[in-house]
């Protein structure tokens, strides 16, 4: 457990970076994890082909929210193609904690949401 909630995870959970909304996002995507009710909205603004601003909003467990906060920091300056190439290993390395199969969905929700937006997937109607 102490492994799972290392100080950097708790820090991002308590003091999330880039939390909120952008005035005019180029990409906006919302997704939920029906298993536990976690919710994430990812917003991205582009300058040329690079990400110039990021915001996320959401509610859920510490893993899902810290993952969204850390991901938001990590993708600033990336191109959309670079975002599309991000994978599970990227998130696991970023979090730096052992994650079991059940919590993996929490850890990956932000990336899944971001990538769906980057690929231009149509949003699931509420």
């Amino acid at each position: 457990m102490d492994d799972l909630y290392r100080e950097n995870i708790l820090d991002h959970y308590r003091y999330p970076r880039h939390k909120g909304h952008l005035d005019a996002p180029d990409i906006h995507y919302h997704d939920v994890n029906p298993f536990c009710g976690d919710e994430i909205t990812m917003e991205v603004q582009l300058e040329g082909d690079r990400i110039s601003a990021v915001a996320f909003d959401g509610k859920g467990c510490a893993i899902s929210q810290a993952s969204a906060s850390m991901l938001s920091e990590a993708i600033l300056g990336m191109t959309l193609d670079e975002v599309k190439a991000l994978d599970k290993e990227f998130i696991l390395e970023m979090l730096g904690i052992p994650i079991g199969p059940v919590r993996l969905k929490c850890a990956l929700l932000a990336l899944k949401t971001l990538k769906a937006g980057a690929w231009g997937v149509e949003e699931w109607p509420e």
Partner: protein
Amino acid sequence: MSTLDRIRSDFPILQRQVHGEPLAYLDSTASSQKPRQVLEAMDAYYRHTHANVHRGVHTLSEEATAAYEQARLRIARFINAASPKQVIYTRNATESLNLVAYSWGRANLKPGDEVLITEMEHHSNIVPWQLICQITGATLRFVPITAQGELDFPALDQLLNERTRVFAFTAMSNVLGAINPTAELVAKAHAVGAIAVVDGAQSVPHLHSDVQALDVDFLAFSGHKMLGPTGIGILYGKRALLEAMPPFLGGGDMIREVKMTGSRWNELPYKFEAGTPAIAEAIGLAAAVEYLDQLGMDWVAQHEREITAYAWNRLHEIEGLRVLGPGPERRGGLLSFVLGDLHPHDIAAVLDGAGVAVRAGHHCAQPIHDHFGIPATTRASFYIYNTHAEVDRLIAALHKAKALFEF
């Protein structure tokens, strides 16, 4: 040695450690642990007796068949069924409820008919009825629950009417812990000419269940929640209803005669048992029932009442903690709660780190959580092997989670 110490020594898994701490298993509502008597009965069957049942005339097949049918008799006696023919082996309570919905429902429901269930049902007593209502054109209705997390009885009396053909309800909620008055609800269903289908997945493991006294038409329960193995469940049904129902699954063992032009069905209970069954699991469940009977269901219920009352009081010492459902005097041995803004997954992960196993999520009962406007809860549940010391460890770990996440 106290009864509780003796019980605990029968469960090998309780000796193990989790993250360097002794296991405190508070998740028996999801699935109970198994005493060595059950493990040994299944092991002995596989080592000495195994063969297919109802088929060969060789010695092993005869012995396996006898053990399998002896198990049925043992389980029938546990719920006081009039005959073992009314005790059908299934995979679990879910399959038992599907059997009733599909077999009885297909043959009996039509547009204009109503199926009544409650807002506190497990998904396994909701979805089969949704499916069968789509197929037959019958209408599905829900009895609401009160703010206290109990059935709304005035609403129930309004909803039950001459169009109601089935009233299906849980005898004990797996989230709220609420114990429903089964006999009274069955009588209400019968008064309007409906059949009563009871989900006993939570009640049969914990409360004395007499199908004849309760007068239930169908009772569904799972082996793995009552000290038995996974993969075995029971559907009890009234004889006349079962006789009139078409089969659920087709295959070997459920037929009397198969011609290329059609087939005739086997007698009860085999009509509903297609294919090679879970033989070792049936024998394991009979050993579980034997174990519970030796303890006595009165002892089981008393032990759970006592530990639940203790846990109820201790949980309420924690500021910001809210338990869903009725007070300890009207509930079974489980407590689902929310703690401030803490997410149940985070709570459960911290508890796991302290060796305390609880369930976090919606517990396959989303309508209840929708009712209370919360996505998920944390649930601690108790069975015959749980101790006050384990409750104390739960409380200590909750304080730790609070300190970690509250800011």
